[in-house]
Protein backbone atom coordinates (compact mmCIF):
# COMPACT_ATOMS: atom_id res chain seq x y z
CA UNK A 1 0.00 0.00 0.00
CA UNK A 2 1.48 3.32 -1.11
CA UNK A 3 1.07 6.09 1.45
CA UNK A 4 2.08 9.74 1.01
CA UNK A 5 1.01 12.28 3.60
CA UNK A 6 1.80 15.72 4.97
CA UNK A 7 1.53 15.41 8.74
CA UNK A 8 1.61 17.61 11.82
CA UNK A 9 2.41 14.93 14.38
CA UNK A 10 5.88 13.52 15.02
CA UNK A 11 7.05 10.85 12.59
CA UNK A 12 7.73 7.48 14.24
CA UNK A 13 10.35 5.41 12.38
CA UNK A 14 8.99 2.16 13.84
CA UNK A 15 5.55 2.88 12.45
CA UNK A 16 7.04 3.51 9.01
CA UNK A 17 8.97 0.23 9.14
CA UNK A 18 5.81 -1.59 10.17
CA UNK A 19 4.02 -0.40 7.03
CA UNK A 20 6.45 -2.01 4.57
CA UNK A 21 8.01 -5.45 4.18
CA UNK A 22 6.22 -8.39 2.64
CA UNK A 23 7.43 -12.00 2.70
CA UNK A 24 8.81 -11.63 -0.81
CA UNK A 25 10.94 -8.59 0.13
CA UNK A 26 14.64 -9.00 0.82
CA UNK A 27 15.46 -5.31 1.29
CA UNK A 28 13.96 -2.64 3.52
CA UNK A 29 15.26 0.92 3.41
CA UNK A 30 14.32 3.72 5.78
CA UNK A 31 15.44 7.28 5.14
CA UNK A 32 14.94 9.96 7.78
CA UNK A 33 15.48 13.65 7.17
CA UNK A 34 16.33 15.15 10.53
CA UNK A 35 16.53 18.74 11.75
CA UNK A 36 20.22 19.48 12.21
CA UNK A 37 21.81 22.08 14.42
CA UNK A 38 23.46 24.06 11.64
CA UNK A 39 22.89 25.22 8.06
CA UNK A 40 25.43 26.91 5.83
CA UNK A 41 27.69 27.31 8.82
CA UNK A 42 25.05 29.03 10.97
CA UNK A 43 23.95 27.46 14.26
CA UNK A 44 20.24 26.57 14.07
CA UNK A 45 18.00 26.34 17.13
CA UNK A 46 14.83 25.06 15.51
CA UNK A 47 12.61 25.53 12.52
CA UNK A 48 9.15 25.70 11.12
CA UNK A 49 7.90 24.10 7.94
CA UNK A 50 5.07 25.78 6.08
CA UNK A 51 3.30 23.91 3.28
CA UNK A 52 0.72 24.44 0.59
CA UNK A 53 -0.86 21.40 2.16
CA UNK A 54 -3.44 20.52 -0.49
CA UNK A 55 -0.91 20.69 -3.30
CA UNK A 56 1.94 19.15 -1.28
CA UNK A 57 -0.23 16.13 -0.57
CA UNK A 58 -0.88 15.68 -4.29
CA UNK A 59 2.76 16.24 -5.29
CA UNK A 60 3.96 13.83 -2.60
CA UNK A 61 1.57 11.21 -3.88
CA UNK A 62 2.79 11.76 -7.47
CA UNK A 63 6.40 11.39 -6.34
CA UNK A 64 5.50 8.23 -4.42
CA UNK A 65 3.77 6.73 -7.45
CA UNK A 66 6.79 7.46 -9.67
CA UNK A 67 9.13 5.92 -7.10
CA UNK A 68 6.92 2.85 -6.71
CA UNK A 69 7.32 2.33 -10.44
CA UNK A 70 11.08 2.17 -9.95
CA UNK A 71 10.69 0.08 -6.82
CA UNK A 72 8.55 -2.51 -8.51
CA UNK A 73 6.37 -2.92 -5.40
CA UNK A 74 3.65 -0.95 -3.63
CA UNK A 75 5.52 -1.00 -0.30
CA UNK A 76 6.34 2.68 -0.09
CA UNK A 77 5.45 5.19 2.62
CA UNK A 78 6.51 8.81 2.71
CA UNK A 79 5.53 11.34 5.36
CA UNK A 80 6.56 15.00 5.47
CA UNK A 81 6.03 16.88 8.68
CA UNK A 82 5.00 20.53 8.93
CA UNK A 83 4.87 22.97 11.82
CA UNK A 84 7.44 23.67 14.51
CA UNK A 85 10.31 21.16 14.79
CA UNK A 86 13.27 20.91 17.13
CA UNK A 87 16.84 19.70 16.54
CA UNK A 88 16.75 15.93 16.03
CA UNK A 89 13.09 15.83 15.01
CA UNK A 90 12.29 13.87 11.86
CA UNK A 91 11.06 16.16 9.07
CA UNK A 92 10.64 13.49 6.41
CA UNK A 93 10.43 9.73 6.63
CA UNK A 94 10.60 7.37 3.67
CA UNK A 95 10.25 3.60 4.02
CA UNK A 96 10.35 1.19 1.09
CA UNK A 97 10.76 -2.52 0.62
CA UNK A 98 11.35 -4.73 -2.40
CA UNK A 99 12.66 -8.17 -3.32
CA UNK A 100 16.09 -6.74 -4.26
CA UNK A 101 18.15 -3.92 -2.79
CA UNK A 102 19.03 -1.90 -5.90
CA UNK A 103 15.40 -0.92 -6.47
CA UNK A 104 14.97 0.05 -2.82
CA UNK A 105 17.95 2.41 -2.89
CA UNK A 106 16.86 3.91 -6.20
CA UNK A 107 13.26 4.49 -5.12
CA UNK A 108 14.18 5.99 -1.75
CA UNK A 109 16.66 8.35 -3.37
CA UNK A 110 14.13 9.38 -6.00
CA UNK A 111 11.59 10.34 -3.36
CA UNK A 112 13.93 12.56 -1.35
CA UNK A 113 15.48 14.20 -4.42
CA UNK A 114 12.08 15.02 -5.91
CA UNK A 115 10.80 16.33 -2.57
CA UNK A 116 13.70 18.78 -2.58
CA UNK A 117 12.86 19.89 -6.12
CA UNK A 118 9.09 19.92 -6.25
CA UNK A 119 7.33 19.72 -2.91
CA UNK A 120 5.63 23.05 -2.08
CA UNK A 121 7.07 23.27 1.43
CA UNK A 122 9.12 26.10 2.93
CA UNK A 123 11.49 26.15 5.86
CA UNK A 124 11.94 29.03 8.27
CA UNK A 125 14.99 28.61 10.46
CA UNK A 126 15.47 30.11 13.89
CA UNK A 127 19.13 30.77 14.59
CA UNK A 128 21.03 30.66 17.85
CA UNK A 129 21.08 34.49 17.88
CA UNK A 130 17.26 34.60 17.79
CA UNK A 131 16.97 35.75 14.18
CA UNK A 132 14.69 33.92 11.74
CA UNK A 133 14.94 33.51 8.01
CA UNK A 134 13.38 31.54 5.16
CA UNK A 135 15.86 29.03 3.80
CA UNK A 136 16.88 29.79 0.22
CA UNK A 137 15.25 26.97 -1.73
CA UNK A 138 15.02 25.50 -5.20
CA UNK A 139 12.81 27.03 -7.90
CA UNK A 140 10.30 24.32 -8.76
CA UNK A 141 10.21 23.83 -12.52
CA UNK A 142 6.85 23.56 -14.28
CA UNK A 143 6.25 20.17 -15.86
CA UNK A 144 8.07 19.59 -19.18
CA UNK A 145 6.24 21.42 -21.97
CA UNK A 146 3.90 23.03 -19.49
CA UNK A 147 0.20 23.35 -20.19
CA UNK A 148 -1.25 25.75 -22.70
CA UNK A 149 -4.88 26.80 -22.92
Amino acid at each position, binding site marked *: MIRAEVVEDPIDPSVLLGLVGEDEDGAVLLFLGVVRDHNDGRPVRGLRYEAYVEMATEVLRAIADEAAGRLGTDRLVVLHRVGVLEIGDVSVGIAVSSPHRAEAFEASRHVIEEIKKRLPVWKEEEYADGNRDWVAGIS*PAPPPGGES*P
Partner: protein
Amino acid sequence: MHVRARFFASYRELVGASELEFEVPPGATVAEALSRLRARDGGFGRLPTSVAVAVNREYATPDRGLEEGDELALLPPVAGG
Protein backbone atom coordinates in the same frame (compact mmCIF):
# COMPACT_ATOMS: atom_id res chain seq x y z
CA MET B 1 -13.79 36.81 -13.98
CA HIS B 2 -12.51 36.09 -10.48
CA VAL B 3 -9.49 34.05 -9.48
CA ARG B 4 -8.12 33.35 -6.06
CA ALA B 5 -4.44 33.99 -5.36
CA ARG B 6 -2.60 32.25 -2.54
CA PHE B 7 0.72 33.33 -1.07
CA PHE B 8 3.14 31.24 0.91
CA ALA B 9 6.16 31.70 3.14
CA SER B 10 8.25 34.75 2.15
CA TYR B 11 5.69 35.83 -0.49
CA ARG B 12 2.95 35.72 2.15
CA GLU B 13 5.03 37.96 4.37
CA LEU B 14 5.88 40.26 1.44
CA VAL B 15 2.26 40.95 0.48
CA GLY B 16 0.92 40.66 4.01
CA ALA B 17 -1.82 38.23 3.04
CA SER B 18 -2.18 34.50 2.52
CA GLU B 19 -5.15 34.75 0.20
CA LEU B 20 -6.70 37.29 -2.16
CA GLU B 21 -9.60 37.14 -4.54
CA PHE B 22 -9.17 39.46 -7.50
CA GLU B 23 -10.49 40.11 -10.99
CA VAL B 24 -8.83 39.39 -14.32
CA PRO B 25 -10.16 39.74 -17.89
CA PRO B 26 -11.80 36.60 -19.29
CA GLY B 27 -9.19 34.33 -20.85
CA ALA B 28 -6.32 35.98 -18.97
CA THR B 29 -3.10 34.00 -18.70
CA VAL B 30 -1.03 33.36 -15.58
CA ALA B 31 1.41 36.09 -16.76
CA GLU B 32 -1.40 38.62 -17.11
CA ALA B 33 -2.79 37.79 -13.69
CA LEU B 34 0.65 38.21 -12.16
CA SER B 35 0.99 41.65 -13.79
CA ARG B 36 -2.31 42.69 -12.24
CA LEU B 37 -1.14 41.51 -8.84
CA ARG B 38 2.17 43.37 -9.09
CA ALA B 39 0.33 46.58 -9.95
CA ARG B 40 -1.49 46.56 -6.59
CA ASP B 41 -0.54 48.76 -3.67
CA GLY B 42 1.54 47.40 -0.82
CA GLY B 43 4.20 44.71 -1.09
CA PHE B 44 2.80 43.25 -4.30
CA GLY B 45 5.19 45.30 -6.42
CA ARG B 46 8.11 43.62 -4.68
CA LEU B 47 7.14 40.14 -5.85
CA PRO B 48 9.97 38.75 -8.03
CA THR B 49 9.61 39.14 -11.79
CA SER B 50 10.04 35.40 -12.21
CA VAL B 51 7.84 33.48 -9.83
CA ALA B 52 6.82 29.82 -9.83
CA VAL B 53 3.06 29.34 -9.87
CA ALA B 54 0.58 26.55 -9.55
CA VAL B 55 -2.92 26.64 -10.95
CA ASN B 56 -5.36 24.44 -9.10
CA ARG B 57 -2.47 22.72 -7.31
CA GLU B 58 -0.41 21.94 -10.43
CA TYR B 59 2.73 23.72 -11.54
CA ALA B 60 1.90 25.93 -14.52
CA THR B 61 3.75 28.03 -17.10
CA PRO B 62 3.11 31.77 -17.63
CA ASP B 63 1.10 31.15 -20.80
CA ARG B 64 -1.38 28.94 -19.01
CA GLY B 65 -4.92 30.30 -19.43
CA LEU B 66 -7.08 30.89 -16.37
CA GLU B 67 -10.73 30.18 -15.78
CA GLU B 68 -13.29 31.56 -13.38
CA GLY B 69 -12.62 30.38 -9.83
CA ASP B 70 -9.10 29.10 -10.51
CA GLU B 71 -6.69 28.96 -7.60
CA LEU B 72 -3.42 30.67 -8.52
CA ALA B 73 -0.66 29.95 -6.00
CA LEU B 74 2.59 31.92 -5.90
CA LEU B 75 5.36 29.61 -4.78
CA PRO B 76 8.74 30.73 -3.44
CA PRO B 77 11.68 28.41 -4.12
CA VAL B 78 10.83 25.22 -2.20
CA ALA B 79 12.83 23.92 0.77
CA GLY B 80 11.23 20.71 1.96
CA GLY B 81 12.95 17.49 3.00
